[in-house]
């Protein structure tokens, strides 16, 4: 047995999940489990109670509204990648979902699970921040700019559950990542979104958590071309450095991925 002992409980509704959480001294929610289960296997997490919210059917949906695309927090990456509504409304987001991990990971992993975990190299945080999405939870709505707060840290309270994410529709958007060849996590991933009046650029994989490149946003607002991004010199200060790549290498990758993301957006 790899993990510490725990008590598994399956919730049929959000209300039941919250009740289960409140009745425990040490609980964690489990969605697709593609990060939490490996983390528990390494005993980096050892909750006493594991509350499975993956079967709550109301959390899994894609809905197109006039000015936004709403995706349920329990929607699997594979379903987002294959959704015609997502492909029509924000093709870059369907592309991003189809780039996460590998097919088996995409069959289990969920949007809500990914952003609640806020892995520094996860793909979805770049899409959520890059599009300026709004996260709706059991308690409130949180703007993407306020949601991601640190390494594996978010604005979520321990018992709070993400219900859905609302993505505003950009004029055009693109996502490009340089994946780690083994894990498929982003060494660097860049999401660019052109809203006409404003441009947003979000970077994952490069720093302790996803961040916006405001200098590049200003340059792209004037001219939304790969060349405009190429003129921005990215400082390696504060960027991640590990056995897969130095901070300088990641700084260079940010520009390269930004150019590719813009090229994909203007295609």
């Amino acid at each position: 047995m790899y993990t510490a002992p725990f008590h598994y409980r399956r919730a049929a509704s959000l209300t039941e999940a919250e009740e289960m959480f409140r009745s425990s001294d040490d609980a964690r929610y489990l969605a697709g489990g593609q990060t939490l289960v490996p983390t528990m296997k390494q005993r980096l997490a050892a909750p006493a109670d594991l509350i499975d919210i993956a079967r709550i059917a109301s959390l899994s949906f894609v809905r197109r509204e006039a000015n936004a695309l709403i995706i349920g927090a329990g929607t699997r990456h594979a379903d987002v990648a294959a959704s015609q509504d997502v492909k029509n409304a924000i093709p870059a987001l369907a592309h991003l979902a189809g780039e996460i991990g590998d097919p088996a990971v995409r069959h289990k992993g969920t949007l809500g699970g990914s952003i609640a975990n806020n892995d520094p190299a996860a793909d979805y945080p770049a899409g959520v921040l890059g599009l300026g999405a709004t996260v709706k939870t059991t308690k409130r709505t949180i703007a993407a700019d306020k949601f991601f707060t640190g390494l594996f840290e978010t604005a979520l309270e321990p018992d709070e559950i993400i219900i859905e994410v609302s993505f505003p529709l950009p004029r055009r958007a693109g996502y490009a990542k340089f994946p780690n060849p083994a894990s498929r996590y982003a060494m660097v991933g860049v999401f660019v979104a052109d809203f006409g009046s404003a441009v947003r650029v979000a970077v994952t994989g490069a720093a302790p958590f996803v961040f916006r490149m405001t200098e590049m946003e200003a340059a792209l607002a004037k001219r939304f071309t790969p060349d405009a991004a190429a003129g921005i010199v990215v400082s390696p200060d504060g960027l991640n450095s590990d056995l897969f790549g130095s901070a300088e290498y990641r700084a260079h990758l940010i520009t390269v991925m930004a150019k590719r993301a813009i090229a994909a957006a203007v295609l």
Partner: protein
Amino acid sequence: MTALSLTVNGKPVNADVEDRTLLVHFLRDHLLLTGTHVGCDTSQCGACMVHVNGRAVKSCTIFAVQADGDCIETVEGLAKDGVLHPVQAAFQEHHGLQCGFCTPGMIMTAIDMLGRHEQLDEATIRRELEGNICRCTGYLNIIKAIRSVAEAR
């Protein structure tokens, strides 16, 4: 402990398991279905691939209790009445294995991708195999085997 009730290779299975039992260990140690392998144990190699409700999933990255009520298909369920599944036959025909350790996972992934794509070119097969690692690096014949099944349909 949790009382599980699920379907494995078409047969109903009831068992009491400790909640922390991974699905791969439930299959191998409780049901003695040892065709599903444990390779990297870190969700990367795909040797433990099974189908849960028709979708390829890494059984080292899911607890057995999460699959309570579900339909599981393992490599042992593929051959019918002594006749190999077309994907198994293609792996044999094209020698899509060297040591064979990754083969059950490769075959379960191949069947999953064949179900999701009407057309399968080499680039798509390679992309779809991103979650399966063959440490003999015998990918060329694996790809050949999968292509032959796609083209014979």
